[in-house]
C-alpha cells in the first residue's frame, strides 16, 4: 500500500481512455435524456422508447461480455454457463419487482399471481424479505457469488480445465433452466416474472424511470470497465494471464491457481448478476429461457467477435452482434441463426483477435505504409 488506491485507480486507464469514458457518460446521462424528453416526437433527433430500451438492454449484455472476458480472455477459462449468473441476478431482482406489483395483479391478491394460480396461500420462505429493495440488492450479488463459489471451488480444486470445464458449466445452466421451468420451484415456471408495475414506487414504464435505469446501466458499465481495467493491470491480472499461459509454472513459483481462478470466477459471476438485475426492469420480463445453453454460447460469441483479452472488445462485440440481431430479427427473422453461425466461423478462422485485433492490424499496416 505504498501508493494510494485512488492514484492506482486513476492509472487504470490512460488519458485517452478517461476522455472516451467521459464522452460516453455525457452521452448516456445528458444527451440521451435530452433527446428523449426535450425533443418533440416528430423531430428527426427524437430518441424513441424503443431505442432507449434497446441500448439499455445491450449495455447490460456488454457488462456480461466484460465479465466473460475477465474469465475467458484473461483467465483462459471458457464458461458456457454465464447466462445462469445473469438469470440469477435477474430473478433476484425480479422477486422484488413482483412484490412491488402489490394488489394490482390480475387476481388482486397480496401474493404474486402465479402463486395464486398454484393455490399457494402465502409467500414461501425463500421469498421472505423480497419486498425490501436492500435485501434484494444483497441477493443480486450474494446468490450468483455463492453459486459460483461453490461450483468453482470444486471444479478448480479438481483441476478441471478446458473443454471439460466448458461442458460442465453448460450442463449447470441447463440443469438450472429445467429447475426454474418447474412451477413448484416457486419462480413462476416457464412464464417467469413479468407484468411489472413499479420499482421503488415509480412506474417502470414511465420515461423518467426508463432514463434512470438507462443511466444507471451506463454508469455501472463505466465503473465495471475501470474496475476490470485496474484488475487486469494489477499484479493479480499478471498472475491470472500467467495461469492462462503456463499454469504449472505458476504453481512452481508458489502461487496457488485455485484461489486466483476462484476470485476472478466469482467477480465475473457477480458482474453478470448485477447486469441481470439491471436488465429485468428495462426489458420487463425474466424467464428460464435466459438460462438456455444457447444464450450462454451467445455471450462467448460477443466476446470472440469483439476481441478477447481487450476489455473494450467485448463491449464492441456485444453492441455489434446485438444490433445486428435486432435488425435481423425484424427484417429476416429466419436467417438470424445462420448469420450468427457464419459470424462465428468467420471470426474463428479469420479474426482470432476479433474486431479490435482487426483494427490494430489495419492501424499497424497504415503506420507501416506511412513509414
Amino acid at each position: 500500500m505504498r501508493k494510494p488506491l485512488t492514484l492506482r485507480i486513476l492509472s487504470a486507464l490512460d488519458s485517452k481512455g478517461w476522455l472516451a469514458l467521459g464522452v460516453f457518460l455525457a452521452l448516456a446521462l445528458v444527451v440521451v435524456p435530452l433527446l428523449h424528453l426535450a425533443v418533440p416526437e416528430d423531430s428527426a433527433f427524437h430518441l424513441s422508447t424503443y431505442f432507449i430500451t434497446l441500448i439499455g438492454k445491450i449495455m447490460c449484455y456488454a457488462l456480461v461480455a466484460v465479465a466473460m472476458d475477465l474469465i475467458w480472455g484473461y483467465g483462459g477459462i471458457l464458461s458456457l454457463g454465464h447466462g445462469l449468473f445473469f438469470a440469477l441476478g435477474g430473478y433476484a431482482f425480479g422477486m422484488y419487482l413482483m412484490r412491488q406489483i402489490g394488489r394490482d395483479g390480475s387476481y388482486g391478491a397480496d401474493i404474486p399471481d402465479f402463486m395464486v394460480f398454484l393455490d399457494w396461500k402465502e409467500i414461501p420462505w425463500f421469498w421472505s424479505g423480497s419486498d425490501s429493495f436492500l435485501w434484494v440488492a444483497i441477493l443480486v450479488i450474494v446468490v450468483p457469488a455463492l453459486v459460483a463459489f461453490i461450483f468453482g471451488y470444486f471444479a478448480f480444486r479438481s483441476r478441471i480445465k478446458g473443454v471439460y470445464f466448458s461442458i460442465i458449466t453448460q450442463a449447470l445452466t441447463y440443469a438450472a433452466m429445467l429447475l426454474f421451468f418447474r412451477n413448484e420451484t416457486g419462480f413462476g415456471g416457464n412464464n417467469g416474472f413479468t407484468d411489472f408495475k413499479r420499482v421503488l414506487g415509480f412506474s417502470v414504464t414511465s420515461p423518467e424511470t426508463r432514463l434512470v435505469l438507462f443511466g444507471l446501466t451506463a454508469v455501472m458499465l463505466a465503473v465495471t470497465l475501470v474496475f476490470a481495467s485496474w484488475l487486469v493491470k494489477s499484479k493479480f491480472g499478471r498472475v491470472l494471464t500467467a495461469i492462462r499461459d503456463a499454469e504449472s509454472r505458476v504453481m512452481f513459483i508458489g502461487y496457488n491457481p485455485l484461489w486466483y481462478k476462484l476470485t476472478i470466477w466469482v467477480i465475473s459471476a457477480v458482474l453478470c448478476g448485477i447486469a441481470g438485475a439491471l436488465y429485468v426492469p428495462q426489458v420487463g420480463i425474466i424467464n428460464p429461457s435466459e438460462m438456455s445453453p444457447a444464450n450462454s454460447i451467445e455471450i462467448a460469441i460477443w466476446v470472440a467477435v469483439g476481441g478477447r483479452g481487450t476489455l473494450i472488445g467485448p463491449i464492441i462485440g456485444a453492441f455489434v452482434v446485438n444490433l445486428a440481431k435486432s435488425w435481423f430479427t425484424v427484417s429476416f427473422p429466419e436467417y438470424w441463426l445462420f448469420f450468427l453461425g457464419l459470424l462465428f466461423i468467420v471470426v474463428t478462422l479469420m479474426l482470432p483477435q476479433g474486431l479490435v485485433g482487426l483494427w490494430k492490424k489495419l492501424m499497424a499496416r497504415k503506420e507501416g505504409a506511412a513509414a
Partner: protein
Amino acid sequence: MILENTLDDRPEGSDGSDQMGHFVTGELDLSHGVALYLEDITVSFDGFKALNNLNLEIDAGELRCIIGPNGAGKTTMMDVITGKTRPDSGKAFFGQTIDLTRLTEPEIAHVGIGRKFQKPTIFEQHTVFENLELAMKTDKRVWKSLMAWLAGDERDRIAETLKLIRLNGEADRQAGLLSHGQKQWLEIGMLLMQEPKLLLLDEPVAGMTDDETMRTAELFVSLAGMHSLVVVEHDMAFVEKLGGLVTVLHEGSVLAEGDLATVQNDQRVIEVYLGR
C-alpha cells in the same frame, strides 16, 4: 472418468485441499547438513516402475549432477520432489522436518524448492521484467497480489537478477521473443528470484551455445554453498565444469555415485550407456 484424466497424475491422498496461508508450519531445518533426503521412493505408472526404491541424499550447499539414460527416472524424481507426482511408497524430506509427500506444488515452492523445467517454461506473453516480478519471493496470496505495488528495493532486486542473467537490455521485451538460450537464462533468473534453498535444474543448458553453457556453469558454481543445486544434464563437458558429485540413475534407482571420472570408469555405467 473424464474428470480423472484431468487430475494431472495426482493419486489419492492429494485432494488439493490446500488452503491459502496455511503454508507449512515446519521451518526448514538444515542442522544435520542434509538438504534433501529421499528414501526408498517408488513410483509406478500402470505397472511400469519409473522410480524403484530410489535413495538420494543432497547436502546443504552441495552441487550435485544427475545423469542417466532416457527413461532412467530423472524427471519423475523431480516431479516427486516438487509435489507434481506422489510416490507410491518411500520418504521424501526437505531438511529434517518438511515432509514433501504431504505438500502441494505451491507449498513446496514456498518452503524453498525451485524448479527449472526441461523445456523452458516462462510466461511468453509477459515481459522479461514481469516474469521476474511474478517469480519474486513475496506473499503470493490473492489479496496481496491485488494490492501489490513494487517497492524500490524490489525493483533493485529485479535489476540485479537481470544483470546476472545478462538480460538487462531486454527488460521490457516480450519473453516469448527471446532466443532459446535467453529463455533458459530467464527461467534460471526466475528461480533465483524465488530465493530457493534447493534448486532443481532439468537440462538447463539444452539449446545454449558453448559460450552460454560455460557461463551457466560458472553461475551455478557460484550459487553452490549458499544454495543446494541438483542438476540433470546430458552435456558431459558441462557436468565436468560443474565439478561435484555425480549420481547415475538407471531404471529408477541409483546405479553409481562419485566424481565424474570415477563414474565414467564404472563398468556398469559404461554398459548402461554403451551396452545396448
